[in-house]
């Protein structure tokens, strides 16, 4: 049981049927379907109010979902497994949103890193999210390097600024569809390495996470939320341009300015990675197992947790 305070807030949520969702990062094309669903009234049709929140710290979507402070957090598949395996945190994924890694190791072109082994002795910035440590470790070791010699620095959200201001030599955690083109469009010469080329499996980049307790208490709401989100996704697939426009209309211009061109391009990269034959969001047991095995192999987790606890598919 998770304290009376929690139960109270949940009771409240039920009455108003509010679903709060914390994005994995500040809003960009990967979140278009949510804004579409909001704009087109799909959430309303399902009888729920959606409160979209942005994280103040990169790790908040998972921690706040786990502590019941938000209904759903968008996070990374390996971290869900690690939380479950290492600390027995009762969280589960309810949908796979992006089915392939978007994460890249990015470096400045004038200070190139030709292969992961060259990260030895270099400073690598990352947003404090543990999966990045696993990725860099896997890549360096796959390339016969020594991960112990890599200097991993938690830079919170300052991936771009720390790289550009040369405070770090490379960063892990930038997305190939968004941060990378944003930096490039501002005239910075950067390049990147794809983790999948160096032993990192094809994990789900973004999954929707909730806590076991929230799931038990608010399953109906979450399912309603997901039905609406699917409709948003379907609309987005059909009307790419309009979907981007809706995102841009919803943007918080001062805080999270978006470039139309970049977001359009970004969405076209994303769509194939979001598509699933069984329907948007459906998760394969195999992917979870593969990712868990990878984490175990590289010592991120000691035991593979019960896969059935970790995810649930919404019909």
């Amino acid at each position: 049981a998770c304290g009376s305070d929690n139960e109270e807030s949940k009771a409240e949520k039920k009455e108003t049927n509010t679903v709060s969702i914390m994005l994995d990062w500040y809003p960009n094309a990967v979140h278009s379907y949510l804004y579409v669903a909001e704009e087109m009234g799909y959430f309303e049709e399902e009888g729920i109010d959606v409160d979209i929140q942005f994280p103040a710290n990169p790790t908040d979507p998972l921690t706040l979902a786990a502590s019941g402070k938000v209904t759903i957090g968008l996070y990374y598949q390996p971290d869900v497994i690690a939380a479950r395996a290492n600390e027995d945190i009762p969280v589960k994924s309810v949908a796979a949103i992006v089915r392939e890694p978007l994460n890249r190791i990015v470096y400045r072109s004038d200070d190139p890193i030709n292969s992961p082994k060259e990260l030895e002795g270099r400073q690598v910035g990352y947003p404090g999210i543990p999966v990045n440590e696993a990725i860099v470790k896997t890549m360096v070791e796959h390339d016969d390097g020594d991960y112990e010699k890599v200097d991993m620095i938690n830079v919170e959200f300052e991936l771009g600024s720390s790289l550009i201001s040369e405070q770090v030599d490379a960063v892990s955690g930038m997305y190939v569809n968004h941060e990378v083109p944003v930096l490039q469009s501002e005239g910075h010469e950067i390049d990147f390495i794809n983790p999948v080329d160096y032993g990192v499996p094809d994990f789900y980049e973004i999954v929707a996470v909730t806590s076991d307790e929230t799931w038990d208490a608010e399953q109906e709401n979450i399912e309603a939320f997901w039905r609406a989100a699917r409709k948003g996704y379907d609309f987005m697939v059909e009307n790419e341009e309009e979907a981007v426009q809706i995102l841009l209309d919803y943007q918080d211009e001062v805080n999270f300015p978006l470039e139309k061109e970049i977001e359009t391009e970004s969405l076209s990269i994303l769509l194939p990675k979001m598509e699933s034959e069984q329907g948007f969001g459906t998760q394969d047991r195999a992917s979870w197992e593969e990712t868990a095995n990878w984490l175990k192999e590289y010592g991120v987790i000691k035991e593979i947790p019960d896969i059935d606890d970790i995810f649930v598919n919404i019909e």
Partner: protein
Amino acid sequence: MKNYLYSIILITVFLMIWEAGARFVHASFILPAPTEIAIKLWELKAELLLYHLPVTLAVIAIGLGISLVLGVILAISMNISETLEKAIYPILITSQTIPIIALAPIFVLWFGYSIWSKVIVTIIITFFPITVSTFDGFRSTSKELKELFQTLGASKRQLFFKLEVPSALPSFFSGLKVAVPMSVIGAAIGEWLGAQAGLGYFSRRMMTQFNGAGVFAPIVVLSLIGILLFITVVLLEKYILKWRRS
């Protein structure tokens, strides 16, 4: 004004050097020039003042308000009960050497992104100076005057309101003058840790946007709040403690 002539000259020189340096370095996301900050402040005035400022002000007001109420109540209780004083005062003093603020990240887990995680940080940072100085104020009540009141047959209530409260006021205001700027800092730090609006939040967000002037602009506003609040307390103090005017 004349008294501050040298200070004004010094600040002007400092701003000019900064301006020149910033223009020379020419990397405004690292070092924006004062003029850039001023322009940004003007551009963002509506957003900063109408949207983010009220959020931060609410945190400061609620945090400071709770600190004041709890702090003064605790100080009075310690003044009344010696047992309470013996139990709590040493803890209060020791707690000041403890970086409780380092626990702030966990408040986000307890209170989410609601206003309360920020309010708690503000309370933690302002509670101590208010409580300790108010209590020290009560303790500073002259023993001789207390005895004088006793010899005049004053009731406990009269002793409290006519002697102890006035005696504690100067020290209470000193504490408040320390706490007020700290409340601004507390709100800003609280907003780093989890917020969706507020000046501290806005400043950090701007960093991610490579917007140096945008980082500084809300901090200018925060500073003005700090100074205004401080001046308010000083004026209030002058008014209430008018007998101290020479």
